[in-house]
């Protein structure tokens, strides 16, 4: 049943990358438990705007868990405490009247804070640009089913392709490593015949790009798979590890 709850928010406020930030306390009154977390923030922002204050900046777009734009640490957990959901899919019914909720941006050297809860995730775009694609010649579209794909491999590739690039893996990793993201992007292509062709070169260049961007090293803590809203698992990281070994030691790519 719909209830109205009152909450105290401690939100990270920071004017820009060059400014120092701090947690500020706000009260969120008469929040319907049917609201999503982002709708709750919208309501708080309306109050802030009406009282002449700067609204809280946060990223969002589709609000149905498929775009990967939203995301913040809610009470120390990426996208909040629910399993397999993005922040927009987190509903206020999971909170109780009188709760204090702490909201912080993703923290990583490679993700600089742009403003408040908004972080710059263009590092992910750079990793994709380094090799997260398949080179296809232009021309007429080939016939469907020309290349046989085993259904189970297709499923595994689709599991990896579910990654929406939200950055929760980096945010929740004790080392701020981007291995779950990068391995998902490597796997979704390496599992399919079209992607296998460039698999060796891809894994080397994507890994080296990831390292240059200042992400940490994976130490198999498994926090990433526990927090991933798409529940992408670390077998993808293992696949990337062996793909790397094969490429580095046995392929002609340097």
């Amino acid at each position, binding site marked *: 049943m719909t209830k109205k709850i009152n909450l105290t928010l401690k939100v990270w406020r920071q004017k820009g990358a060059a400014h120092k930030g701090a947690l500020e306390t706000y009260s969120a009154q008469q929040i319907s438990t049917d609201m999503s977390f982002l709708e709750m923030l919208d309501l708080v922002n309306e109050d802030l705007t009406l009282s002449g204050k700067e609204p809280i900046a946060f990223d969002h777009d589709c609000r149905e868990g498929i775009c990967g734009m939203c995301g913040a640490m809610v009470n*120390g957990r990426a996208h909040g405490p629910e399993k397999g959901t993005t922040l927009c899919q987190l509903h206020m019914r999971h909170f109780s009247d009188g709760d204090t909720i702490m909201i*912080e941006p993703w923290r990583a050297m490679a993700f600089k804070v742009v403003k408040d809860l908004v972080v710059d995730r263009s590092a992910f775009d750079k990793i994709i640009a380094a090799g997260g694609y398949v080179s296809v010649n232009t021309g007429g579209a080939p016939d469907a089913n020309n290349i046989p794909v085993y259904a189970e491999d297709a499923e595994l590739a689709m599991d990896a392709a579910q990654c929406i690039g939200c950055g929760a893996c980096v945010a929740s990793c004790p*080392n701020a490593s981007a291995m779950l993201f990068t391995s998902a992007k490597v796997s979704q292509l390496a599992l399919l015949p079209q992607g296998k062709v460039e698999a060796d070169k891809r894994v080397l260049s994507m890994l080296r790009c990831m390292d240059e961007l200042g992400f940490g090293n994976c*130490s*198999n803590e498994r926090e990433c798979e526990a927090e991933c809203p798409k529940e992408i698992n670390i077998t993808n990281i293992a696949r990337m590890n062996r793909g*790397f070994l094969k490429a*580095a030691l046995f392929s002609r790519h340097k």
Partner: protein
Amino acid sequence: MDWVKGTFGTSIGKKQLMAVTGLGFIGFLTGHLLGNLTIYLGPESFNSYAEHLHALGPLVNMAEVGLLLFATVHISTGLLLFYQNYKARPVKYVGKKWAGGRTIFSATMPYTGVLILVFLIIHLKTFHFVDHDNQTISQIASNVFSSVGYVVFYTLSMVVVAFHVKHGFWSAFQTFGANHVKYMPAIFVLSAICAVVAGIGFGFLPVVSRLVL
């Protein structure tokens, strides 16, 4: 030789170095424990084991050089990874909660690693770099373990080793990419067994030495 740097200088490359050397140490621990279990059979057996081992001569020296090389790689790479991982998040969270992936074993890896290094230095100083001409290995062990303080330190150190092995063992297989639906559950179990065997096997040696030697 650029590809060598481009391989072992990467984050995965460094992890491969940690995994290979780490598994090497598990192999060493297995041999070391099997040999030391002769303590249970009394001082004669223990001394005879030590004599037979040292009779191998140059093979032992080669193994020592190998272990030193592995230790250098494992420790220096480990410290570098720890520093890089610390740097990868310059602004820490005010409140961070773990989601259930992290365990006490994985979270303490750098610290248990450093503690093992401290133990190793003391262990070598008390057992290896001592007079071996005028006393047998049983006499050395018996002398060292006559101090209750040292027994406590040794036993606690073995708990630390067990912690390190618990995460390190399965982690090495994941790093090699050997995360496989058929074998991973067994690797997890084996990881726990290795940790317990190392902890109990070595951990009880001082007490046994005090009773037997």
